[in-house]
Structures are given as C-alpha cells and as structure tokens.
C-alpha cells in the first residue's frame, strides 16, 4: 500500500511543515516532496522525465497563489507533457479559499482531480490515495 509518491507545491512554510506531518501520519506514501512554487516543482518534474526516472509523483497537492510560478502557470506547463505520461499524475488544488472562477478554470485541465479546502485531514489524504 505504501507505494505512492506525493508532491506538495505551496509557498506557506508553516503549511509545508503541517502537511508533511499529515502525510507521515497517513502512512500511505512511499515518499513525499515539497516545493515552494510551481517553478521548482516543474524543474524537478522535467528532470525526472529527462532522466527517465520512474519516480513520477502520483499525487500533487497544488496551491494556487505562489510566487515565481503560480498554480495555473504550473498547470499550463503540465499540459505540455505527453498525455500518456501525465495521465497518471493526479493533481488536487488545495487552498484556504476557493473562488468560483478558479473552479471553472480547473475544469479545463484534465489532470486536476478535484479541490481540497484547507485544512486537509489525514483521512482526506487516505481517501485521495484510495481514489488514485
């Protein structure tokens, strides 16, 4: 069961600490990584693809409001990856406040599997994994 890889892309340092604790407590991920913005996550993703590394993330918890590259810009870049590769990356938008326009926008990206309002609980995380 402990075979999923999860990435957290969020600029909130406190939240990064909290989510790491929650991921650990969930016990369903073989590994997890945090990135302060979309750009760093994308750089890592591209590197994995270049190295033909199989450790692609199964789940990405993505914040929208981030410096350098926000969540939407990150999604636009993801769109450029071959569909047979990116289809296995399940992305969830995680935000403390979700506007309607953001929900509409998310429908245009096939990789976005859903919205999770903060705070996220261990059970919610387990439920996400079971849907993956």
């Amino acid at each position, binding site marked *: 069961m402990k075979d999923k890889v999860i990435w957290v892309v969020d600029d909130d340092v406190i939240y990064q600490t909290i989510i790491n604790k929650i991921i650990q407590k969930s016990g369903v991920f073989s590994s997890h990584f945090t990135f302060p913005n979309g750009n760093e996550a994308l750089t890592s993703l591209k590197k994995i693809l270049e190295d033909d590394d199989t450790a692609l993330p199964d789940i990405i918890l993505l914040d929208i409001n981030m410096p350098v590259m926000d969540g939407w810009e990150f999604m636009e870049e993801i769109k450029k990856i071959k569909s047979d590769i990116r289809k296995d990356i399940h992305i969830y938008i995680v935000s403390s*406040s979700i506007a309607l326009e953001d929900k509409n926008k998310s429908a245009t990206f096939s990789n976005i599997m859903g919205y999770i309002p903060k705070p996220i609980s261990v059970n919610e995380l387990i439920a996400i994994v079971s849907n993956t």
Partner: protein
Amino acid sequence: MKNTENWGRFINWFAMRPRTAGFLVFFIFATITFIFSVLRNQILKDEDRNKMKIILNNAHQNIEQSLKNCYSTTVSLALTLDNSGVPQNFEAVSKQLIRSNPIVSSVELVPGGVIKYIYPLEGNEAAMNLNILSTADIRKEAKKSIESQKIYFAGPLKLRQGEVGIVGRLPIYNENKFWGFTAVIIKLNTLLKASGVKDIQHSDYYFQFSKKNPVTSKEEFFLPSKTDLSKSYYISQSISDSDWVLYLVAKQNVLVYPQVLFTSALGIIIALLFGILTTNILKKPEELEFLLKEQEAKLLKTEMKFKTIIDQAPVGFAIIDTASGNLMEANKKFCDMLGYTFEEIKKLGVNNVIHRNDLETFKNIKNLEKGIITDFSIEKQCLMKTGEIIWVNIIVSAFVESNEKPTSYIAFTKDVTERKNAEALIEKSQARFKSIIDNISVILWEYDLETKKSSFISKHAENLLGFSVEEYEENPRLWEEHIHPDDREYALSFAKKNKNFVNHEYEYRMITKEGKVIWIRNIINYGLKDDKPVISRGIMIDITTMKEAEKNLNNSLELVTEQNKRLLNFSYIVSHNLRSHTSNIESIISLIETAESEDEKNEMMQLLKSVSNSLDETMKHLNEVVNINTNLNLVTKPLKLSKYIKRARQLFTKQILTNKVTFITDVEKNALINYNSAYLESILYNLISNAIRYKHHERKPIITIKLYKENGKDVIEVSDNGIGIDLERNADKIFGLYKTFSTNSDARGIGLFITKNQVNAMGGTIVVNSIPNTGTTFKIYIK
C-alpha cells in the same frame, strides 16, 4: 381756277366710273397704235418701192450700156467698109470686136439687106444669104432701123442659127445711099445675164421682159415668170432703140407689213393692259373703302369685346390724366372695389381715394414720365367709401402716343387685403419663429449640398461658437476648421461615410472663437429632390454640461468600480489570508490531539506560535491597508520632493554604499508637490527599496528619480536598471498583496500593494513599465 375745277370734276367723273375710264384709256392707246401702224406701214411700203426702183434702174442701165456697146460694135464694123462698100479685114476686125464686147455672139454685114458676111461663120451658116428685107417676120423691124436711120434692136426672135436672140442693125449709107446693115447678134440669155436680170435672186421680186409684137402689136413676155401682172405690184422701164419694156414685179402684193402687225398687236395689248390697269386702279379706293368699313366693323367688335373684358375683368382698370390727375375712365371692378360710382371718384379725385403723394409713388411716376421705366407696381392702403381700409396692388403704366410724353396713366388694381393680412400673419409667425430660433439654445443650420455653402445658421451660433452668421456664410469651411483636431477625422469621415444620406446624429468637440472646447451633438436630416439629397439640415446642441456630467459620472463609476474592486480584493485577501492561518491552526490542533509524544506536541506548539506571529503580521498589514483606504481626511500640503528623496536615501545609506548604487535625482530643488507627507515617504521608501533589492547581479544599480509634468499632471518617475519584471506573466499581480514573483527569499509581496493603495488613496495612479534583465520604471501620477 375754273379750268382747274372743271379738270377736277372731269377726273372725279372718271374716278367714279372705273370701267368707262378704263375703256377710254384703251381707246386712246389703241388709236395711237393704229395711227402709228398706218404710218409705219406706209414708210415700209415706200422703202420697198425705192428698193425696187434701184434694182430696176441697175438692170436697165446694164442693158442700155450693153446695147450702146453693141452700137459701137456696129459702127466699128461699118468702118471696115471701103468706099466701094466692100469690107476690108472683116474677120480680123470682127474677131477683135467680139473679143472687146463679149455679149455679142456674132457680127454680120448685110449689104442690100442680104446677110453676106458673118463672123464667126461657124454655127451661123443658116443665116448666110438670108434676105432680111424680104423675110416677112423680120422685115418690119429691119425697116424700122432704115426709117429711123439709127441702130434698132430687133427681137427677141428665133434665130435662123438657133436660140432666141436680139439683132442690132445699124443702117449704113454710102454717099447718102443705103448700102445695107452692120449687125450684131446677141443671144437673149447672154444679154439678160450681162444686165443682171438673169442673176437676180431676190426673195421678194422678179424681172419680166416684154416687147410689143410688131405684127400683132400685142405685148409678149420673154421670161418664164408670171406674165399676168394685173394683180401684182410692179415698176417698168422702156429700153431705148427697141420696143422693149423691163418689169420688176413684187412677188407678193403686201398691204400690211408683218412688223406693223406685230407692233400693232403689241400696242393693242398695251392699250388693253392700260385700260385694265386704269379700271383696277380706279377700283382700288372703292375696295379700300370696303376694307375700311370691314376693319371699322372689326375694330368696333374688338373694342366692344375689350370693353366687355375690361368691364368684366377681375381686376380694376382706370385711366388717369397725367396733367390733371383726373380719372378719365374706369371699369366697374375699380369702382366696386372702392365702393364709389365712377362719377363720385371723378368728383373726389383719384388722389383722395388712392394716395399718390408718397415718396415712392412720386419717384415712380417721375421715372415713368421720363421714360426710365415703362411701368411700376405698388401696394397701397386705400380708403373705401364705407371708411374701411383695404390693401390694393396697383400696376401703373404710361400711355404714350407718338413718342411723346405720356398723356395718361393706365392703372390695374387688385384688392389684396386678404393676402396682405395673410402675409402679416405669416410675417408675425415668421418673427415668432425667428425669435424662437434665435433664442433657442441650439444652433439650427441648413447646408446647400449643391453649392456646398451654408444657406442658414441660427443666431445662437454666435452665442455658442462665437462666430457670426455672416462669418459662417462667408467661410464654407468654418465648421470643418473649428472641429477639435482629435475629433476632426472622425466627424468628417462620419459625414462622408453616410453615402445613403440616412438621417443621423453624432457627437464631437468644437473649438469656439475664444478657444474654448465645447461638446456638440449634431442631429442631421436631408432634404431630397428627385430622390437626390440637395440640402442637409440639422440641429447642433451644446452637450458640454452633459458630457462633463457624464465624465464625472464615469469618473465616479470608475472610482466606485475601483473601490469595489479593491474592496473585493481586500475581502478576498482577508478571507484568503485569515483562512490560511485558521486552517493551519486547525491542522496543528488536530495534530496536537493526535500527537503520540510530548516532543511532537511541543513541536506543534512551536508551530502554533509561528502561525500566531504570522497571523499577527497579517493583521497588521490588513490594518495598515484598512487605514489607508478609510482615511478620508488625509492631510495634504505642498511638499518639497527633493527633501523627501534625500531622506529616503539616508534610510538606505548602508545598502547604497554596499551595492555601489548610483543615485540620480532629476528634481528641482524647490519643486513642490501637493501630497501627504507619510505616504510620500512610504512610497519613495518602497520603490527605492525594491530597486535596490531587485538589482541585476551583473551591473551596478542605477536609480533615477524624476519629476515632470504629463498632460498637466505631476509625475514622479522612479526607474532602475535591475532584473526587471516579466509583465506578460505578472502584470495582474504586481500590485497584489503577498504577490511575489522573484526567487528572493525576503520578498513578501506587501510593499507595492501598500504603495498602490497609498497612491490611489491620494487620488492618483501608479503604472509600471518593465523589461526583464533591463530594468523597471514606476510612474506615479499625482492628482
């Protein structure tokens, strides 16, 4: 005198009888023609006879001459005889004689009456030895010469040797004793030929030659032409030494000559023509009199007709004497119009009914008299018999006889009171409309599309645009020239694009004569003629106030929209940021509850403290923003910008020195801006701070601060040569709260958010221009 009277009576008598006079003229001319013809005929006849005499004389003389020559021949022949009566050299002499007198065919010597010598003998042998004194048919004539003792020409007779001839015999005496004859034989044809009788070829005459037969005493004719001359006209002459008579006979016995006949006929024709002409001429007065009567009847009829027309005419008609001004004639309409009878007007005088003593009428009448004008028309008020005043249109023309001064005036009058009243109403109405048009606060205009000229513009144009109506009329391009330069192209193209001439309206700015800018709404429609627009009309309304109100409204709307946007943004910020912290707190509490050790709990407690501090910081920021936006009574005063820049620089002294920043200030030392002191300080601090923080690592930072005016507004410009911002990606979040777009760890996304709020709170705007890796420029527009 009496003779003259008689002559006149005589002439009149004939004038009254054109046919008799005509016949008399014919008779006189015919008589003259007859007398003339008779005289001319006689002259022609005399001429003819004289001509015959000349011809006859000529022929007669020729014969006489020939016979005389023959006498000479006989004498010469006698000379050949010697004393004994014997001829000497007869043949030689005869030959010579015949040669000299060619009409002689032969010569003979007849001694004792017997022909013994003949030259030439040949051809004449039959006559040889003929005793002429014993031969019956010739003896008598031979004896005639003996009796007369001179030459006698016998014949014409049939010669023994043949042919018809004449024999001229000269009796010769020797010692007073008859010896015999010398004779010449002349052939008749030769004689006639020599005399010219034979040759005559006259169409009008012919010759005849006769001799009284010595035996029968009857006249015998020897020429083949006509012998009965009793019915012919002829003249004759006897030939000496013979019994011959020569006749010249006219071929036709002409009584009247053709020339005379032609002349007579011509004369008769002329006489006839004169007769007819006289008759016709004398008939003319009669015809003229008839025509005159006919014309008189026509004239009378026409006059009656005209009189009826004038009497029944729907206009008044009057004739006025120029000298006295008295009414001479007037029709019923004229009298009825004024309510008087003709006699009453005549008695009153035209001047008392229709006043002619005004200046204009006086001037026109003078011009009419001088011939400067032929007529004039005037409208005057007239007093009726009833005391009522009516308006009358009078057309006056001069009646001129034989190029002299006018003897009378002809006046046509028409009651135009109704029209005048209507005109007065129209005039009043027009005045009212004019007053409305002049006083209405819009410009009414009309433009002739064919002449491309303004045909009307209301007076309000002067009030609104400052240009007089005359200036509009004089300069067809005035409107075009005074459209605001920014709107000219639009306004003109709008007018030009309207090819189908659809009624329309549009708005644009114009510049008045004083240079003021006003807003105009132009509502245009078109006047068509044969489906073609010939005129455009419109109303120009000053909508400046409305436009200003609209602008203010738009500004207010923009302000409200902006405030709403900011409020929404702020509420979102509040919601989002507070929610982040609360969700973190919630998660931490949950983690504390499920903590498996005290260390874990402590770790979570530390985390909770961090959240608390973060929340506090967020609250401070939000409070600051709330303060900025709710501080309605911001104190503004003139601030010396250079002083504030200097102060800001002092705050960054360490950074400036460390980073070797070049600081350029392009601001006048005493330049003032009206601003809030704290905000100006904060804005300069944030912008300079950013310029240093986001420096380019490959070059030394250069920060430039300028103050200048743009569209009348003060602008503070802060520019740097730093890393720049990718505005394509970050334009919407550059001034957002907690929006950072650099990898700098100390970037918090608060400075520009605060700066924008401060600028906006002061009523200004902030804009940014940036090129990545080149630099960034912020411009603050001060209200």
